[in-house]
């Protein structure tokens, strides 16, 4: 697992208080919302704030969120692409 992906998973687990879950148990390809992790809109706001705080990357609107929250892999790619060097 890449270092960034591991940090993304740790952030998700911490911000959403997915207690008892380890990064290994979070599927890279599963969607974050609906099926997969089954997150809701409140979780989405928490993730947006967590991503901003931890990675200094802003998810500006719902269109960006749709793209970023497709899966853990998509979110990791989104952060890598938008992170300021």
């Amino acid at each position: 697992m890449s270092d960034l992906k591991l940090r993304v998973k740790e952030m998700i687990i911490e911000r959403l208080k997915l207690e008892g879950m380890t990064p290994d148990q979070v599927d890279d390809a599963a969607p974050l919302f609906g099926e997969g992790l089954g997150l809701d809109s409140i979780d989405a706001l928490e993730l947006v704030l967590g991503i901003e705080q931890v990675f200094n990357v802003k998810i500006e609107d719902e269109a960006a969120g749709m793209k970023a929250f497709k899966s853990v892999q998509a979110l990791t790619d989104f952060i890598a692409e938008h992170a300021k060097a």
Partner: protein
Amino acid sequence: MTGIPAQLPHRYPFLLVDRILEREPGVRVVAEKLVTSSESYLQGHFPDRPLVPGVLLLEMLAQAGGFLEAESLHGAAIFLAGVQDARFRAPAFPGDRLRLEVRAAGAFAGLLKLAGTVTCEDRELCTASLLVKRL
């Protein structure tokens, strides 16, 4: 600022904000609530020792939060979607002048996160994060 009824749909006996003291739209609101001994809930909470229920302090913060985006809400309600990390450090009593301070802490897809603090004479009574949704 006047015109609270025009900016908030809540009415007696559930309008829990008396005055807006400071306001930076979309950023921060400071409101005020005077707790009077005639408030109906104090009769039963508690007969010998009237104090404001903690959940009503949260409601006061949520109502104050309605003024953050007053221009775009046009008097519509915002609804509570969640409460996080609520702490009640000291009770509020009849006669207290409560200062309700609410700051915008983030927004995404119609949900707002608010950081709220209730103080009385510089004593912190309650802090909480509120998640509110505009419909």
